[in-house]
């Protein structure tokens, strides 16, 4: 990191627990502009919870989260303003079933960001077109395949032009042959310099697009570094064990 440049996201000493169960502890993470940070680790290691904390969907128990240099873990911060600048895509798509794909994509730009219907629709149609969903713009989500739904969800998140995109295991619920379509979009976004934090089980994909890979184990980031080092020369015994099991 060159001095004087504020990271997009800075997490220090993050702790999150549900009652006595500590889900995240001492998490430190820095995400610079155009970084693609991949969170890997076994189920229950805290990847999803970390993403939910970053998006302020969960209250944290300790630590500091800074977004564009401003602390967003402050209770006085306007949560909606923060979320308006972050995009999040969920494992189960979470598209609104009562709205068409186009309306799903224009809801937030129109209601949160104050775009006119025409402007919002133009932006949405461009993105839908770019990612091969233009023919489905008028359809409702349940008419689409899982892969198409997840691509629609990604486009919905992109329509607000977020500074940071959070992706929570977005291919985990998809059939293997549909995974490629979704990952192609993420790859395109990474190539275009979109800043992303993503939790994933797709190791080959993480190795290919990540600038940084974080291995989470029992709520800690046990090891982080460039993908080459993490995948080829992991320092921690637990990382080696995990990679042996999944690769």
């Amino acid at each position, binding site marked *: 990191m060159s001095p004087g440049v504020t990271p997009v996201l800075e997490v220090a*000493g993050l*702790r999150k627990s549900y009652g006595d169960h*500590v889900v995240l*502890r001492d998490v430190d993470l820095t995400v610079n502009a155009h970084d693609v940070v991949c969170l890997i680790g076994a189920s229950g290691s805290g990847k999803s919870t970390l993403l939910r904390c970053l998006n302020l969907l969960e209250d944290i*128990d*300790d*630590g*500091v989260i800074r977004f564009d240099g401003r602390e967003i*873990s*402050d*209770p*006085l911060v306007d949560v909606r303003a923060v979320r308006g600048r972050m995009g999040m895509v969920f494992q*189960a798509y979470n598209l609104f079933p009562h709205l068409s794909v186009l309306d799903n994509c224009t809801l937030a730009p129109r209601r949160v960001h104050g775009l006119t219907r025409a402007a919002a629709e133009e932006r949405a149609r461009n993105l839908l077109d770019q990612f091969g969903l233009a023919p489905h713009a008028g359809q409702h989500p349940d008419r689409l395949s899982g892969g198409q739904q997840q691509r629609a969800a990604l486009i919905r998140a992109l329509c607000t032009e977020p500074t940071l995109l959070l992706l929570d295991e977005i291919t985990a619920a998809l059939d293997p042959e549909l995974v490629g379509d979704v990952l192609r979009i993420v790859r395109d976004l990474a190539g275009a310099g979109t800043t992303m934090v993503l939790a994933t089980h797709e190791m080959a994909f993480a190795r290919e697009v990540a600038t940084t890979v974080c291995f989470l184990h029992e709520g800690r980031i046990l090891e982080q570094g460039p993908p080459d080092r993490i995948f080829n020369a992991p320092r921690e015994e637990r990382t080696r064990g995990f990679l042996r099991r999944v690769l």
Partner: protein
Amino acid sequence: MTQAPDPAPAWSPSPRELERRRQRRRQRTRSLLVASTAVFVVFVGLGLAVVSSPGWPRVQALFFDWDHAKASFPEIRDRFWVNVKLFLIAEPFILLLALAVALARSSRAALLVPLRLVAVVYTDVFRGIPTILLILLLGFGMPALQLEGIPNSALFWAGVGLVLSYGAYVAEVFRAGIESIHPSQVASAEALGLSRAQTMRFVVVPQAVRRVVPPLLNDFVSLQKDTALVAVVGGFDAVFAARDYGNFNFNYTPYVVVAAFFVVLTVPLARLTDRLQRRYAERERAGAR
């Protein structure tokens, strides 16, 4: 007793977190303060506005007269028992009738088609007739027939009217519940070799009943109130007693007393409904985080 070894060193909140907690506490205190002030201003204001309005003494004399309230109270209290009894007796019959109708409507067997038709016609007809009309019809009409071997009291037939009317409503609630159970549940029950009836009995209905408990309780609250309708056919209940007293003394305070009785009876059930609804919502959410 041995304690499990703590793998991590004990955690104590950082100064920033402590500051944050103080901040959250301040925010909570402030919103509590705002809420209390708003409640106080609104309700005291409303109370003062009502009491200081020019017509208030007349309203008070006609509707909120303490002496009339005291004088009518014992009779109303005794007669209110009729309403409670009517509710307690009608409710089980309504549940049975409604479940039977709902099951008949969702049956698919060829032989049961006549039963299904009866169920459809029943719900259409009895949901369409105003409850008060049904009670008038049965409460005055049936005793007038002078039939042998069945009760001839207006109160009994008013109760039957309530059961028929509410049975149709509650049947629809059950049916909605049965139809809301995902087809995959039926498919997996049938894949295990269960018959259609067994599938209903052991898989669908138990899930459906659990799901419709909140709307069912809502209908019960409504039924508790509608027991007051028996007064129109001379069922000597609390409302009848209040009307009796009111007509004799030209004062409406007894109606307010009866109203208070009904509110006291229905509020616990309404709260229970809220609690159950919240619990179901939480359970549904737990799976979809």
